[in-house]
C-alpha cells in the first residue's frame, strides 16, 4: 500500500488552468479599461506568483502514518501538520465539474482543532484515509 502521496500531475494542470483563467480575466479587463501600465505590472507579479505556486505544489506531501496523518507544505517556511486519526471528526469530499473531468477529488478534513484543506488528490487516497479513520474508530 502506498504510504507517501505527492500531488498528481493533473493537479498541477488544474491549478495552472485556474491561474490562467484568473490572470487573463483581470489582465483583459485592465487592457479594456486602458490601464496598460497596471497590466504590465500585473503580468510581472503573476509570473512570480506562478513560480511560487509551482514550487508550493511541488513541496506538498501527505503521509498516511500508522497513527496520524502528516501533511507537509511550504517553500520558505515549511509547515508539518500531524493530525491523529482519532481527532478527525469528518471528511468533506469536494467535487467540481473540472475535478470530475480529471478524475480527482478535493477534501476538507474537519478536526477538533479546525479545518484542514487537502489539495486535489486521486480518489484512491480519500478512500484509504477513510479506511484508516475507520480502523482507528474500531
Amino acid at each position, binding site marked *: 500500500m502506498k504510504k507517501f502521496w505527492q500531488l498528481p500531475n493533473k493537479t498541477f494542470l488544474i491549478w495552472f488552468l485556474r491561474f490562467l483563467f484568473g490572470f487573463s480575466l483581470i489582465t483583459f479587463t485592465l487592457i479594456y479599461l486602458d490601464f496598460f501600465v497596471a497590466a504590465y505590472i500585473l503580468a510581472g507579479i503573476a509570473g512570480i506568483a506562478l513560480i511560487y505556486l509551482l514550487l508550493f505544489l511541488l513541496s506538498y506531501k501527505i503521509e498516511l502514518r500508522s497513527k*496520524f496523518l502528516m501533511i507537509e507544505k511550504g517553500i*520558505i*517556511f515549511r509547515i*508539518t501538520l*500531524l493530525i491523529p486519526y482519532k481527532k478527525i471528526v469528518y471528511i468533506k469530499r469536494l467535487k467540481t465539474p473540472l475535478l470530475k473531468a480529471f478524475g480527482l477529488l478535493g477534501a476538507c478534513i474537519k478536526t477538533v*482543532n479546525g479545518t484542514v484543506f487537502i489539495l486535489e488528490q486521486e480518489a484512491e487516497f480519500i478512500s484509504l484515509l477513510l479506511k484508516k479513520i475507520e480502523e482507528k474508530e474500531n
Partner: protein
Amino acid sequence: LKNVIKMHPLMFFIILKPYLLFGIVPSMYSVLNLFNVGKNSEFYYYQFFVLLCVLLLIEIKRKSLKIEVFEKFLVIKKGLYFNNESKMQSKITALYIKQNPIERLFSAKTVFINTMSDGKKNCEFKFVLNMKNAEILEEFIQRKADLRKKRIPFLKVMFWVAASSNIFEGVLLFTPLIRNVSKLLGIKVYDTIFSQITDKLRFTDKYLPTTVNMITVLFVFIYFVGFLYELLKNLKMQLRFDEKSISVKSGVIVKRKTILNSCIKIGFCAEQSILMRIAGRQAVKAITGGYVGKFSGAALVLPSQTDEELKNSLGDLFADYIPPKSYIEKKKAIFGIFSAILLPVFLSLALIITATILILIFNQFKRFIIFALLGFVFLLALYVYILFYGYKNSRISLEKNITAEGTRRFKIKRMLLRNDRIACFKLRQNLFDRKRGSCKVTLTAYSKGVEKTTIRWINKTELIKNIEKVE
C-alpha cells in the same frame, strides 16, 4: 425526566437584543409620536402595531424555551410551531454562571452552556434562569455532595492581579468612558487632563521631557483601572472540585462561577509573567474542550503558586500526574539563536555605517542619530536576550502525560496534558531550521482556540518518533 426548567422573565431582554437596532428603536419614534396628539397619523398606528407584534413574538419565544434535565443528558427545546430540540449528553464542557446586581435584585442568573464544538466565537446557549433552576443545572454538571473546597487567599489573588493585570483592559475601559462623558458634558476632558498633568509634573521637566512624564502617569492610571477591575472580578475566589469536575467562584459586584466538566482529564496550563518569575510563582489554569471565548474553556484555578505548592496542588487536581523523566533533545538549537540574530546584526551594522556617514555629512543631527542608534542597539540586545530566554526555558516531554514548556516574549507557559488530549501538532521550519533538522512545534489542546504553547528548536525527527510512540 427529573426537572423541567423554564426561563426567567429577564430572558425577554436577551431575546430582544438582536431586534433592538432595526426593529425596536425605529418603532419607538412612532410610539413617542402617538402621545403627541397633533402628529397622529395612520403610519404611526401601523408602526406601533408592528412593535407590539414583535414584542409579543419575543414573549412567545421566551415562553417556548425550556430545558429538560434527565439523569444523564439535557434536552433544550425551542419554538412553538417549528420545534427545535437539542440533546446533549456528556459533551458539555463548561457552564459559566454570572450574576450582576440587577439580576440579583430579581433573583436571576445568566447561564452559558458550552459544548465541545469548535470555531464559534459566542457560546452555544445563553439563558436567564431563576436561582433554583440555575442550581439544578449546576448540580447536573457537578454534584455538590462529594465536593472538596479550597479557598484562595486574598493576598495570592492580589499578587496575581498585580503581576498580570493587562494594561490594555484599562485602556479599553478608560478611553470610551472618558470620551463619552466628555462628549455629553461638552468639556474638552483630554485637554484638561493633559494640561493638569503637565502642570503637576513641571518639577520633573529637568530630568525627563514632558511627554514622557505624561505618558508614564497615564499608563500608571490605566494600569490602576485594569488592576481594580481584575481584582473585583477575582476577589473571594473559591475552588470546588471532585474527581471529574472543577468549579471556580469569584467576584464581588458581578458574581461569576465557571464549572469545567471532566477538566481533570484534559489538563492544566501554568503561566508565568516576568513579575511572577521574579517572585518564583505561577498562575495555573484548568483547560477543557470547546471554544475559548470570554466565558469558558479555561478558568484560573490557582492564581499564584510556588513550585512546591504547585506539586502538592497538582496531586489533588490532576490524579494521573506523573512528572516527566526526560525531555526531547535540543542540542543543535544553540546555533538557531545565532542564525536568528544574523539578519538583525547585519542590519544594525548597516545602520551604524549609515549613521556614521550621516554624522559626517550633517553635523547638526548628531544627537538624534546617536539616540536612534542606541535605541536600535537596545532593541537588538532585547531580541537576543528573548531568544536565549526562550532557548533556556522551552522543552517538551512526550511520555504518559505531555509536559510542554514554551515562551512568548518573557512569559513562560507550561502545559500539562494527557497525551490523548492533543488535537494537533504543528511543526514549523524556516530555511535555517531545515538545514539543522530542528523545528518549532505548536501544541494545541483539544480544540480550536484552547490554550496553545510553542517550543522552539526541537529536533524534528526525534519529535515525530516520540509523537508516534505516544499516540
